[in-house]
């Protein structure tokens, strides 16, 4: 198959993939807005606080970003038990520390999560590199 025909065949596939991605983005955005709206309505009816549980949402988002990117970056180590064991240990320490701190702190500024996400990712990279180096 020539390069030109290969490129032509790939074009509709890429366009379709892009459309699916955009539809997914829109669906996720609608879902999030609806959830926040329903939460606000529920709180208004029951006389609760309008505040979202931001400290927990932030922690969950931070966890997803740090571990999600780490797992994606270490694709070559997916078949190794040691990688998952090390990641599991780090996750346990991360969760334990996070829950311990968040239970004792009433409010966590969102800016702190923005800063901590990058720092924790670098720490995780150094930790995995220390134990997995030379095994890939």
């Amino acid at each position, binding site marked *: 198959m020539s390069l030109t025909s290969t490129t032509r065949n790939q074009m509709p596939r890429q366009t379709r993939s892009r459309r699916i991605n955009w539809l997914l983005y829109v669906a996720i955005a609608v879902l*999030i*807005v609806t959830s*926040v*709206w329903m*939460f*606000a*309505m529920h*709180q*208004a*009816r029951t006389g609760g606080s*309008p*505040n*979202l549980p*931001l400290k927990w*949402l*932030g922690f969950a*988002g*931070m966890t997803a*970003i*740090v571990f999600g*990117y*780490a797992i*994606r*970056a*270490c694709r*070559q*180590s997916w078949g190794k038990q040691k990688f998952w064991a090390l990641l599991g240990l780090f996750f346990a320490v991360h969760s334990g520390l996070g829950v311990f701190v968040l239970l004792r702190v009433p409010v966590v500024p*969102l*800016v702190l*999560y*923005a*800063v*901590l*996400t*990058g720092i924790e*990712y*670098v720490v*995780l*990279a*150094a930790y*995995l*590199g*220390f134990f*997995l*180096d*030379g095994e*890939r």
Partner: protein
Amino acid sequence: METIQRTLRETFSVRIAPSRSVCYQKGEEAEAYRTGLQFDLDYGDDCSCAFVVLGIKEVAGGPADRRIDDTSPANNGPSWWGAFAKNLFSWKNFTDEFKQGGCVNVFGNATAGALNPFSPSLSSVKSSVVRSMVADANATAASGGLMSLDLALAQGFGTEMYSMATGGCH
């Protein structure tokens, strides 16, 4: 060792001076290690000839793969201070400073790298795990910032909806 599919383009010319002459003969292997943004050559004393390193192929996890392809015997040229002065006031050397591998270029890259906390020199990191992960560090840091912004927007939207439902705003 795992070879990275990237060959560095820096060209290193070693200046001739009594205290900093290169001790390697043509074809002899020189020790070259990646340290930050520059390659440091392992020098010896009392050398009579110098060589130009034309290319260094980077290898992960250890000393760089090196080649010495050309020689320029110091004994046949001008004295070391003459060569030094000629190099110092050379227009080509001045413009080379701004190109890849030049000191001004290195200074600019190092300054930019120092300002950005998530862009360490990937080539200076020996661990392949850290290399692949640090390549995503910028995206991770950006995601953390975006997540915080999104949560703040969600809080604003939720409070507005709450206020509308309770008659606090119209």
